[in-house]
């Protein structure tokens, strides 16, 4: 491969694979989901802690009793993740780099 043709091809690749700007509402959506998950996990912990007696609070200081709060956080996190997975599976679309690049070309080259 000559240096010239390699440079030409690299330029073509740079043209074909331009960075794609995310939709404006994606940032809001991700931030909302992250906030919801952390709040959900915090609420789980909070409601559980309110129900505890002094004896249980003392017992919690023993690391051997940390499984329950950790499980609550994990449950909240997994629940949020599961919602996202469900969302992904609900909507099927054409896949692959060709579809992506065709969309880019279609926008500027009608017909």
């Amino acid at each position, binding site marked *: 491969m000559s240096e010239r043709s390699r440079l030409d*091809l690299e330029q073509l690749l740079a043209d074909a*694979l331009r960075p*794609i700007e*995310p*939709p404006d509402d994606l940032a809001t959506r991700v931030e909302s989901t992250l906030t919801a998950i952390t709040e959900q996990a915090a609420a789980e912990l909070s409601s559980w802690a309110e129900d505890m007696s002094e004896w249980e609070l003392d017992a919690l200081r023993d690391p051997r009793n940390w499984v329950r709060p950790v499980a609550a956080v994990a449950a909240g996190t997994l629940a949020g993740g599961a919602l996202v997975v469900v969302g992904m599976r609900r909507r099927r679309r054409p896949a692959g*780099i*060709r579809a992506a690049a065709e*969309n880019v*070309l279609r926008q500027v080259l009608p017909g």
Partner: protein
Amino acid sequence: MSASKEEAAAREPATKAELDRAFEDLYRAHLRDVYSYAYYRVGNHHDAEDLTEQAFLQAYRHFERARRESNGRPLRPWLIRIAHNLASNYHRDRARHPQAALDAVEPPSHPYGTEQIVEGREELRAVIDRLDRLPDDRRDALIMRFALGMSNREIARALGRTDGATKVLIHRAIKQLEEELEN
């Protein structure tokens, strides 16, 4: 912040608020990278959005550890690796449960003028077509290089390879692409 200060900050235990701020910085800096990678891997905006969201959720979950273990190195390769793994799972799932396309997708915003694009239209189509036929690892490395502008070292970290192996991978990918375009 200098590299040594970043390294020191990454090693120190952080409060929840500090971690959240650091994650927010990471998120704002690399949302476009993750989204671009996701889009070129899945081929439509809806799934690219879902995949991007899921990638950042996973990243958030493991951020403290990743930050600690990075020793101040940039976390973009780690983020892209998460998106890469999710995209692989997405395609594996689709292969198991193929479904028809539901509707057309809306096009992305485009930084170039129509006239410029028309001139190279056929050439670009040919490149895209051949790119799509490359082995997965070669195609993914080229997406990282050209759509995200990642260095060989960053791509190596994202793909879990050595720097040398990544350099060879990209060289072979471009060579194969050129040979296929000549044919």
